[in-house]
């Protein structure tokens, strides 16, 4: 079956500026209700002049779980970062398919397992406590600068064994790297900026081999030494863990601040969930509702079909996680924030947070860590009886991928 493809009156989803006004949930809902998939023409960043948008939960899962039919090799975001398929980014884990992907992923996967991450609880709580102590000394502050950037940069620095005095560098470098995803140069700027952080991590890895520590850079450097990773894979994997570990947690925490400051119903539901000891469901619902990474991309390896839509070899399919997480087939009343949902457990093993961490081989390796950071922050805000309100206007950034908030002036009262 070949069905429709282009839609009128939909914002240009190839333009990052579109996302500055907000995530276009209404446009995604219209697309989701149509048969087949919608095609967005794009004069840059794809292999065939545009991309498909997968907005239903099951379609997104199908694409992400089938790396035979849908490869990551040319890039995992739109615009593609490795459009020739053999550029310098081909050794980044995000651009690898099985089995190379699994070999690289395993080098760090065990360090992110649930029983390992559970041991992080006490020191992450210290990080959160110190962050809130500092921020709440002021009555008014920028939540992004004082909280959303601070917690994940310190946590990922500790996990990777980056000295604490470099945490500002991590935050700044990561934000620049993510901005570069929108630069239309086939991944060149991205590669250059990632390479700069990579040089630093290579140097750090050499130091860790001399003085091994209980951290991820040591584990990765040992994998490099014993030949499980090559030097480029090491460098790019370390960079990826660093920037991915920072960015999405930072964006989620930014939105949590915004929602708590602006939405009394969300504030009330949050307090109730924490009083009833349902913090895991609360974290899942914040993640679903916010969905910090809006979408990813894959490229068809052959002529195929999704939802009855004919897809040609080399076509880009963008999988819109923000849309999948508002699919009423999976989450009834999808636009409502409700941590007490009766059946929030969709298939494919993604749990109550839905498609927020992706699916398939590339599903976020750090999902346990992300959930732990967010849970502890919510618990500590609740324990301190912090009440946030806006003290100016929130400001979004223009970004294809990240549901980005760049400014959030708040005032806070305690107790």
């Amino acid at each position: 079956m070949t069905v429709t493809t282009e839609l009128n009156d939909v914002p240009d989803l190839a333009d990052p500026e579109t996302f500055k006004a907000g995530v276009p949930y209404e446009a995604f809902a219209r697309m989701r209700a149509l048969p087949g998939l919608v095609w967005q023409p794009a004069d840059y960043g794809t292999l065939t002049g545009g991309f498909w948008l997968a907005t239903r939960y099951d379609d997104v899962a199908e694409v992400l779980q089938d790396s035979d039919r849908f490869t990551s090799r040319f890039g995992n975001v739109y615009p593609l970062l490795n459009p020739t398929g053999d550029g310098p980014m081909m050794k980044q884990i995000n651009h690898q398919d099985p089995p190379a992907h699994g070999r690289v992923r395993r080098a760090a996967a065990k360090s992110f397992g649930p029983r390992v991450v559970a041991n992080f609880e006490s020191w992450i709580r210290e990080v959160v406590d110190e962050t809130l102590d500092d921020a709440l000394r002021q009555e008014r502050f920028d939540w992004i600068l004082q909280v959303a950037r601070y917690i994940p940069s310190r946590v990922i620095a500790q996990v990777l064994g980056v000295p604490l005095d470099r945490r500002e560098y991590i935050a700044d470098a990561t934000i620049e790297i993510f901005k570069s995803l929108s630069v239309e140069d086939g991944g060149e700027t991205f590669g250059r900026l990632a390479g700069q952080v990579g040089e630093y991590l290579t140097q750090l890895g050499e130091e860790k081999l001399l003085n091994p520590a209980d951290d991820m850079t040591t584990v990765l450097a040992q994998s490099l030494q014993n030949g499980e990773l090559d030097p480029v894979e090491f460098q790019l994997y370390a960079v990826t863990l660093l920037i991915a570990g920072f960015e999405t947690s930072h964006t989620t925490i930014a939105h949590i601040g915004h929602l708590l400051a602006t939405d009394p119903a969300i504030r009330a539901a949050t307090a109730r969930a924490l009083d009833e000891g349902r913090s895991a469901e609360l974290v899942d619902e914040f993640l679903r509702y916010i969905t910090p990474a809006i979408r990813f991309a894959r490229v068809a390896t052959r002529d195929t079909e999704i939802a009855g839509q004919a897809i040609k070899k080399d076509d880009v399919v963008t999988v819109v996680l923000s849309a999948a997480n508002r699919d009423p087939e999976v989450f009834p009343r999808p636009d409502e924030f409700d941590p007490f949902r009766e059946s929030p457990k969709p298939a494919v093993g993604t749990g109550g947070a839905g498609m927020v961490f992706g699916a398939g081989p590339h599903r976020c390796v750090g999902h346990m860590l992300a959930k732990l950071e967010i849970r502890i922050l919510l618990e500590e805000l609740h324990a301190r009886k912090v009440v946030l309100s806006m003290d100016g206007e929130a400001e979004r950034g223009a970004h294809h991928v990240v549901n980005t908030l760049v400014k959030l002036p708040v005032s806070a009262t305690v107790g």
Partner: protein
Amino acid sequence: MSDKSKVVFVNGANRTEVEVLVGTSAMHAATDNLVGGIIGECGGDLSCATCHVFVDPEWFDRLDAPGVDERDMLEATSEEPTEFSRLSCQIPCTAETDGIVLHIPESQ
């Protein structure tokens, strides 16, 4: 010789028997037959540790020993592994495993 092999999945009080073609992994035997508790998120890439099973002791020694990569990933399972733990994507169903009993961890 039959080209089919039987696998028995035990999940709490539930017991599910499935029959698959020889060569199929035990993970696919579960996911293709909608057996709950075997997630197989990565599709068999040995990347996710969501197809963890406890092999019935009676059957454990009849399997080849797990490789080093599998032993690494067993450290990332949701439930504490035991001496009988395996990732079911690494267990091929064969004539020798016909009737194998696999217990599914509760927290998975």
